């Protein structure tokens, strides 16, 4: 079994209204230390793949096919055997 952690974030330069809304809410709550904040998605998936390279292949494909909107998002992942 393999475990992958996938982190998806907004591409830079794309409008992130959610990040803006959270930031201004934090400033209203007087968390003035907060210089910037962005919200991304984070997936944890367990894979029954035959090999690590199969698992790696699956992770890339599911990101491309479903989890990540490549028009607007980028991703990184970590994969290990468990």
């Amino acid at each position, binding site marked *: 079994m393999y475990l992958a952690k996938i982190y998806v974030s907004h591409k830079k*330069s*794309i*409008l*992130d*209204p959610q990040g803006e*809304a959270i930031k201004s809410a934090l400033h209203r709550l007087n968390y003035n230390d907060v210089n910037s904040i962005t919200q991304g998605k984070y997936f944890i998936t367990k894979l029954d793949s035959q090999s690590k390279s199969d698992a790696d292949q699956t992770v890339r494909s599911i990101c491309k096919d479903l989890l990540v*909107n490549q*028009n*607007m998002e980028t991703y990184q992942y970590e994969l290990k055997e468990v």
Partner: protein
Amino acid sequence: MLKQAEKSPEEIRDQKIYRQWGMSDNEYHTVVNKLLHRLPNFTEAGILAGMWSEHCSYKNTKPLLRHFWSKGSKVLEGPGEDAGAIDIGDNQAVIFKAESHNHPSYVEPFEGAATGVGGIIRDIFSMGARPVALLDSLRFGELTNQKNKFLMDRTVDGIAHYGNSIGIPTVGGEIGFDSTYDKNSLVNVMCVGIENQDDLKQDKASGIGNSIIYVGAKTGRDGINGATFASNEFSDSKESDRSAVQVGDPFMEKLLVDACLDIIHHHSDILVGIQDMGAAGLVSSSAEMASKAKSGVDLNLDLVPQREPHMTPYEILLSESQERMLLCVKKGHEKTIIDIFKRFGLDGVVIGHVNNNGQYHLTQHGETVCNIPVHTIVDDVPEYTHPIIEPDRIKHPAADFVPTVNDAGQMLAKLLSQPTIASKQSVYRQYDSRVQTNTVVAPGSDAGIIRIRHTDKALAMTTDCNGRYVYLNPEIGGEIATSEAARNIVAGGGLPIGATDCLNFGNPEDSESYYALAKSIDGITKACKLFDTPVISGNVSLHNETDRKPIYPTPLIGMVGLIKHDDEITTQDAKHAGDLVYIVGKTYDDYSGSEIQKLIQHQISGRIKHFDLQTENKNRKLVYQSIVNHLVQSVHDLSEGGLGVSIAETLFKHDFGFNGQLDLLGRQLFAETQSRYVITVAPKQKNAFEKLMGDCVKQIGQITKEPIVKIKLNDQDVNMNETDLKQKWERGLN
């Protein structure tokens, strides 16, 4: 993203940089030799290319669009403003417009559709109207292809996301599927608003020294060159280099609607003009406002709120960041306006002033970066007419197709499960159709209907177009699209009062595409004149083609009808067992472009016959009269799938059955002859109804409590369970 190193004027000329922006050599030479008498710099050339694109200037279609009929005694504002306006009595006006967002929604369906909704809403409230309803019109390739299913799901998500969040009910729409839309799906959205006539606002920047105020989202590098992008043909090889996705923020737009309406309604004395930033963003809104007032503007780009550092003038001007508005405000009153924005949580910023020299003059970091006449940007755009050629399929149509139908019951079940005919509930249940608490008829009947609060009136609205008919005959297809819209309005109890359009076509330089465009406009115009439904606004989307294969020409018609008393509101579903069922209009062997032809032959061909505008008009008027006289229980117009499908749809809501006899053959249950309706009438009103309708109706049966559909035909009988049919219909989209 698209960060361009700025080329010098000479480099632009020598390397023909303007071509990348969609400007032709001829156009560039006109600018240099006839208009500016010098070489434009990078910013100026970029501005001109953007503003001279089809999307902003309508240079290829203006000569044709002038043919539309937009007079009518009730028209308060015709095409030319952000949206048109029609008098609906009591000093009120209805404002509406439709717009396409096809290419962006193909590239990024969720955000493309969402920002399409956002854009059309801005057109409505910038006229001073409160947006009260949305409708959509969608076309995709066949759902057997996963990609199309994905496009549909994400598009619907995007529309729902924006409309639900901003709180405007989506009360109607349509969806169709044909492989012709495979790589060119269509996403058209219509918005309807209501306002007091005194508040009607024009978008003008006039009065020397008056201030230009920017409000809304900051400007980023999104959608740069969107205007030229929207007018560029796709080809498969380009699939990878698309970028510049715009993201919609309905929350910001909600604040903008409320703030701008507050200003328009309470401070019209100091507000000179207001316009949204749509295609070609800041340059388009500011230059058009100045052009209408025959003035000029001085803008200081350093003052424009920017989301990213180091933006060039070109990027700032042509950015298509969403949720931005531009206002022209009387000198000395800027603070009043800015304070109102502050109250709504928005930052309004003065970015420049109106000047009296007619120049579009921009500075950045203390230097002039653009100085050209407003006139050149907005009014000196060349106009093109293109040759037209009647396509072979129209000149020499294939022999008319006549289906063989041995089991009409099974055929009915099959047709009901075709995605184009099947229930669209799985789509519209994702749309909040009741927010604002005015919705009387939500999606699911022929027209969406909202009441006008504190009056006895209501508005019926619909979007319609069958591209297959337009493909087979653009002129008649245009007449039919308009007729179908009017039929849907009347089926809801409305008197059609006006129309808007979204002309979705292929490349105008293709003579057959241009023929379709020109002829369908002729057809729409003929019908609109006869129906007294002026076209008060509209939108054009060309180049809907991939590798030179255009979509079916699809001139969407959005129509609005006035219901004078809310007790005239009518729906399509049968109300009581025992009611009599009538058909209005004659049925012929019409299968060209029909759903049954597509089902059997997997393609469409033939001539469109038996359509007559006068008959259409006569039937519609009689049906309307029968509603106003309170003689009917339900009215449903016939469209795809013909009489069989319409009878079934009349039964579904309350699970009734039908028992009837028709002087027709089995196949004719599915003929798509136009100008027809299915009407149910209470037995006690039989005589009055028949007397009014005369020989244009025929009784065909009765609504039964038992949910069984029994039809005696000349060559066979139909005997089907209503519940089975309904299940097929309900599951067709999934």
